[in-house]
């Protein structure tokens, strides 16, 4: 009797290990999709590295100039676009002047999408922000890290005009901005190369400018060592970093709403890992016996 039950159990684990991968895909799809219908906001503590990004902006006086580099494309939108919107909200709420640029061709376009979204907020709309006075989009220029290096000497070497073709000398916000000496903080949203690492190497370590970053989760672990050494003020790591930043800002938005799906999906993956391991060790035990 015992032998028969044992046999059935073993068969079950064997079946489980050879399960069709499409069933797992289905589980993940359901785990991701269903929570999206529940507008549940997960409350989560703000980690020190995210809090540092928040503090870096909070410490700036009204009128300070912030350079935001958009180094990503639509492929990384779910992770980085919520961060971009939060950065803008924070900067405009604190009356900071924002200079936008991009080392990726689609970066400055992503900035425009984020600006359109942020300008829908009542408190931001009430400020009646003016292009060229409160914010400016310099656009994209080719050259990767060489652009960062040249901007350290003179912005005009890399950007003689903004994305609309207006010479920098004719833009009120850019008057008095020659190089990083006239920038109070750089924010970088990065999905790869060129990105945060290049900003650290060519702007922070050479021109000693303050840098905070938002990265895709894949890239984030490579950036944490720069925090320990003071090369980076703080990092928003992936969707969770973005969600924490929204909480720090007391303005939960997309990232926070996505985190419920993220949590459920991770739970399902962990469950599959546990089941897979149990099945694997059960079969190994069977083989050795």
């Amino acid at each position, binding site marked *: 009797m015992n032998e028969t039950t044992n046999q059935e159990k073993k068969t079950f684990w064997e079946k489980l290990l050879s399960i069709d991968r*499409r069933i797992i*895909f289905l589980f*993940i*799809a359901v785990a*991701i*999709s269903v929570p*999206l*219908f529940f*507008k549940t906001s997960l409350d989560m503590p703000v980690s020190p590295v995210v809090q540092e990004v928040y503090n870096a902006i909070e410490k700036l006086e009204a009128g300070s100039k912030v350079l935001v580099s958009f180094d990503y494309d639509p*492929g*990384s*939108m*779910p*992770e980085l676009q919520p961060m971009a919107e939060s950065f803008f909200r924070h900067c405009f709420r604190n009356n900071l002047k924002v200079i936008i640029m991009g080392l990726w*061709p689609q970066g400055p376009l992503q900035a425009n999408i984020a600006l359109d979204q942020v300008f829908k907020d009542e408190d931001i709309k009430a400020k009646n922000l003016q292009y060229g006075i409160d914010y400016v989009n310099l656009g*994209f*220029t*080719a*050259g990767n*890290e*060489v652009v960062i290096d040249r901007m350290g000497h003179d912005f005009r070497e890399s950007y003689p005009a903004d994305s609309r073709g207006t010479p920098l000398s004719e833009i009120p916000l850019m008057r008095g901005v020659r190089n990083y000496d006239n920038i109070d903080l750089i924010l970088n949203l990065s999905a790869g190369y060129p990105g945060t*690492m290049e900003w*650290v*190497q*060519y702007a*922070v*370590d*050479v021109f000693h400018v303050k840098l905070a970053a938002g990265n*895709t*989760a*894949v890239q*984030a*672990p490579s950036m944490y*060592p*720069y925090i*320990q*050494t003071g*090369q980076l003020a703080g990092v928003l*790591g*992936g*969707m*969770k970093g973005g969600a924490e930043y929204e909480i720090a800002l007391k303005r939960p938005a997309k990232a926070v709403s*996505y985190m419920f*799906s*993220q949590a459920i*999906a*991770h739970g399902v*993956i962990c469950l599959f890992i546990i089941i897979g391991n149990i099945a694997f060790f059960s079969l190994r035990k069977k083989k050795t016996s």
Partner: protein
Amino acid sequence: MSSEVIGIWIGAILTLGIFSFLYKDNPFYKFSEALFVGISAGYWFVVTFWQYFVPKFWDNLSLAYSELLTKGRVDYHWIYLVGGFFGVLMLLRLVPKIGWLSRWSLAFIVGTTAGLQFTRYLESNGILQVKGTIMPLDLTYPKPFIAHTGFIITDILGTIWCNLLNILYTYSHWVLVVGTFCGLIYFFFSKEHKGVFGGAARVGVWFLMITFGALFGYTVMSRMSLLIGRMDYLFGIWLGLY
């Protein structure tokens, strides 16, 4: 029907086309993939032409030429001809007989990049990171923390978890120094990994495995984020279900 709505429909149908591969390979997937590759190639060609070739090469040479015509002066913008020359050499790959000339361009790129990156990497990722691991090794006690969530189970779990993090945070310098040292020992193959040396190497392996686990976790989170973005597009933007 506005162009925006048409765009959303095309995006949604192509997303489903790519997802259909998860079931099995099919013509719908192949069409979506081919369209994506084709549009990407076309897009990058246009970007390269208008963002790289025209502003960096053509405009600068035009400036040099007009300076020569109007003022009879040979100005520094002619230097861009060197870049153009190397660019042409790269294209010679298309001519097998003289394709080897493209190696000159590659040698120039590799040499310049190596020279440019060497000092920056050495300082940012070498010297400063080594300096970052030289830390004072404190022996202060972490402050105990008791969680109050209202439920006894979450109180216990929260207290254990927070105190564990607290201990790790307090002794993070120790973790950093021990982890770096033992990790380096693991990669030292000139001595057999036995005894104390072997034990240290084993600790190093644990640190490496925890690092790889964290990296894997972050990668999973990244991929899930992308999937959430697509699902949100399908259910929220396309179908408008919430």
